[in-house]
């Protein structure tokens, strides 16, 4: 049952009413979005209300404690407040829609079924930070939805919701849809900025951070699709409503992308803080074929996996998962059943990172390929016991020494909720390699013993 202010507590998840992806036919169309979803009311009231100056919007967002849904989980309102004071330079918002982490496919649902929620969220963010233009950097493979979104964006320009003096106010802003060319690294926020500038998607060294030196050297904020969509909900229902949903320290509705060995894989909208066991057994219909669970990767392929015996009582929020030894990431839950060959699975993951390593810095460029080859040898039954030590060694040689990883790693320690707003990409793949090695070591060891 909804509580007094209408928010759903986690234990009532069965009664949760979907707000990000409500069951409304053709919601992706502007007419439907406006008529059946109170669409563009939030931004209209902000622009029409003299009380709601940009700072008030940012403060509301900050108070709602919307933690970035791109993986790093940093307070989005706080991030908005890092933008320098407006001056005569252009200011940009870059929406990270380059969803390319294996096991992550939630943003796609938003862009397919409720793109106007994203657009309205961008308008709110643009107003709050006084941004001139927002670039939506979309994963190039989402070509159908990109075309659909462009059609809807054209409608917004025609109706005066975008461009000069939107909704008849004195605020002008733009949204530009950009299609990526299929590189995982371009989902890392600075790699994405480089790519938007027409350059090779090599991540930049930080600092300076994008807020100081972003797109073409101008102040830029990078936010994930889902994060921006939440801005609409916050402004529509208020910060209290939002922060009352789900886990206390990591509130709000969220999209769980559940994949792997479950009966009903898919994207499910529920409050944060759900029990992982509930999500697997009750939401997704349990492990496929009634088998036992072996492991869960809770937040996309770059978050450390948890063994079946490690997930008892663990909930889907940053605190609980960190305690369990993993990360919230993008809430893309990958379920592995008891028959999974962990070496084989790890080899596949390693192949992905090897293939997607941008090659800018040495440890990741050389290390990921090497790790894959060791795993391939093990997977083919030719492994040696010393390969296990080698894998651990290589993982440690990469962790903390690569270019953008090392920095993020440091930042994470200094500030547990450190944010960077990538689609799960930021910072994780390599840093967590090592941890994955640890948590999978026993599984690997068993496999090796069996095979040799």
């Amino acid at each position, binding site marked *: 049952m909804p509580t007094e202010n209408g928010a759903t507590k986690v234990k009532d998840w069965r009664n949760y009413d979907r707000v990000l992806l409500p069951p409304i036919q053709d919601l992706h169309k502007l007419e439907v979005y406006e008529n059946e979803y109170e669409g563009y009311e939030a931004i209209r009231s902000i622009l029409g209300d003299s009380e709601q100056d940009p700072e008030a919007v940012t403060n509301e967002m900050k108070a709602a404690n919307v933690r970035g849904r791109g993986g790093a989980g940093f307070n989005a309102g706080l991030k908005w407040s890092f933008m320098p004071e407006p001056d005569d330079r252009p200011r940009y918002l870059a929406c990270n829609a380059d969803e390319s982490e294996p096991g992550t496919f939630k943003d796609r649902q938003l862009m397919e079924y409720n793109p106007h929620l994203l657009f309205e969220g961008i308008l709110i963010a643009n107003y709050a930070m006084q941004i001139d233009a927002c670039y939506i950097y979309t994963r190039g493979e989402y070509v159908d939805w990109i075309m659909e979104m462009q059609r809807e964006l054209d409608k917004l320009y025609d109706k005066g919701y975008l461009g000069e003096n939107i909704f008849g106010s004195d605020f002008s802003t733009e949204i530009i849809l950009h299609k990526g060319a299929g*590189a995982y*690294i371009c989902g890392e926020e600075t790699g994405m900025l480089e790519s938007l500038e027409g350059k*090779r998607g*090599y991540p930049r*060294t930080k600092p300076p951070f994008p807020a100081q030196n972003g797109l073409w050297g101008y102040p830029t904020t990078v936010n994930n699709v889902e994060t921006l969509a939440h801005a609409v909900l916050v402004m529509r229902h208020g910060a209290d409503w939002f922060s009352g949903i789900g886990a206390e320290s990591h509130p709000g509705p969220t999209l769980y992308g559940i994949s792997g060995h479950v009966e009903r894989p898919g994207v499910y909208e529920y409050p944060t803080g759900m029990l992982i066991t509930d999500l697997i057994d009750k939401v997704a219909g349990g492990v496929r074929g009634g088998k036992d669970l072996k492991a869960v990767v809770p937040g996309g392929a770059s978050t450390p996996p948890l063994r079946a015996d490690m997930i008892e009582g663990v909930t889907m929020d940053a605190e609980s998962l960190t305690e369990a030894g993993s990360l919230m990431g993008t809430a893309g839950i990958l379920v592995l059943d008891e028959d999974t060959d962990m070496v084989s699975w790890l080899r596949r993951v390693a192949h992905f990172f*090897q*293939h*997607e*390593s*941008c*090659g*800018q*810095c*040495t*440890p990741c*460029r*050389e*290390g*990921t*390929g*090497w790790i894959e*080859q060791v795993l391939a*040898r093990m997977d083919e039954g030719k492994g040696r016991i010393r390969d296990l030590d*080698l894998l651990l*060694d290589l993982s440690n*040689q990469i962790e*903390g*020494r*690569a*270019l953008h990883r*090392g920095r993020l*790693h*440091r930042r994470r*320690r200094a500030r547990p909720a450190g944010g960077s707003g990538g689609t799960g990409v930021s910072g994780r793949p390599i840093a967590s390699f090592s941890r994955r090695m640890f948590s999978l070591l026993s599984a690997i060891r068993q496999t090796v013993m069996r095979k040799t």
Partner: protein
Amino acid sequence: MPEITVDGETITFENEEEPKLLQFCLDQGVELPHFCYHPALSIPANCRQCLVEVGTPARDRESGELERDEDGNVKINWMPELQTSCSISASDGMVVKTHRTSEKVRRGQKDNLEFLLANHPLDCPICDQAGHCPLQIQSYKYGPEGSRFEFRKIHKPKRVRLGPNVTLDAERCINCTRCTRFTEEISGSDQLTIIERGVRNYPLTAPGEEFDDPYSMNTIDICPVGALTSSDSRFQARAWEMSRTPSITTTNAKGSNCFYHVRDNLIMDVTPRPNDAVNKFWLADEDRLDYKRFNNDRPEGPQVRRKGTLQSASWEEVHEAAADLVREAGEKVLFLGSARATVEDNYLLKRLADAVDADAPRFIPHTEPGHGDGWLRTDDRTPNRQGVERLGFRPVDEKMLRSQLDAGEYAAIYVLEDDPVASGLFEAEDLKDVPIALHHYNTTNETLPVANAALPAATVVETVGTYVSEDGHAQRVRPAKEIKGTSRILTQAMGAARQDTHGTPFDKWHNDQNRVDCRPGWVSLPAVAEALDRDLSHEGPKQVMGEVAGNVDAFDGATYDAMGLAGVRLEAESDRATAA
């Protein structure tokens, strides 16, 4: 003054602009291994080799006071991970541990080299970079003893013609991006980029494009491995077989500093020598491709015209012949100095002209409008025009000179190290009846067929002397290769110049091969004067230049000792005029 502690040693520094830690350590003589960092380029921090441990003093958040432990020592906050020193600014109170004191750093550097070498081919026995390869050297010093990489290495193209002058061996590339950054940030041609991803990537041009940047070959020098090689000199000589002599290039009037690499008295390669006042770290391609004229088409000793044909002669005979020619013409000798010859030789020519009461020497300018680019290439294609102008020589007036010649005003021409016919000053026909004494470098000299006394001259790589660049920078050249005959001055100068990593004055490959029978102007000009009973004797070019610096205001301060390796910036002519 801010101070920083490196391996327990406290060093103070000026805090005008916070230096990067790596550069700071290098300046202090602390070697830190690195590949991608280059002082003239941006800092991508991508090779991850220059790792150090860094700590900063702990400060109380509220008071800003330094925190101290019980013993009163400042507490240090160590960064949890190793840091790349290239990208960190040295700040006051910083404490740094390098591989000299930290096992963690040693381990980090070793691990990184293991990665770098994992897919690096074992080409060292056939690689041009071997012997002066940062990867090779640093692997020996800081790398692992063996490799744990037991798999097939990545294979990439071995011979990619990037452009007319640069050939890429993609397998050797360690992806430091120095080359792409050079084309982006220094030469501005943006012709190179990294293609592919991860371990498969290497630098390449856009499809259908050529790497024809006039400065393309600098990428070869800054390449820390043997990936980018000179199409011209690859596989010609090993680094340790060559002696390296600091000198300057003479293709244009910039006076870019360079090293001449020599084996068996043949120039094998030309590479830039850093000089902040002239060419920084760089060299134009034309400068380094221009060396073949030092090796090929060189004259086989002096020649004298007898019965209408040029015949070999002894040096005494040719000096005598040149003296005869001057003596017979009396004061009606046209002396042509040269913007290609050294200041010393031109000065001696001027004194010879004075001694026989002839007109002051003039010189032939060689300019090519539009060739210059405001950087290291100039319109002027000679190395020493400033030098001869500062000696008071005027450029020749073609029309006037021809009419003077037709009117019989000149009974002989004395040419120092130039080619009046090839430069279009005269037709060979016009000179049939005028006796010519010619100091020449190459047998391709078009004035040679009409010369009466031909005196082979030592080129810039065989002599000692001074050139003055377009910007008024006076610089010494040193002999890189030996000539026939013995000269104590040349041998000494060569010995002093070759104290470098690749050889000593007593290298075993100092031999008689490929020695050219030629003489510097400061040897042959006094000999000609002596045959004329005039005295031009001197104690060597050093003394000649000292005399020039003392007697000619425009060369004030340009002594050998002052010039050293970096040269001396002379006062501009215009400044002197206003001062006077």
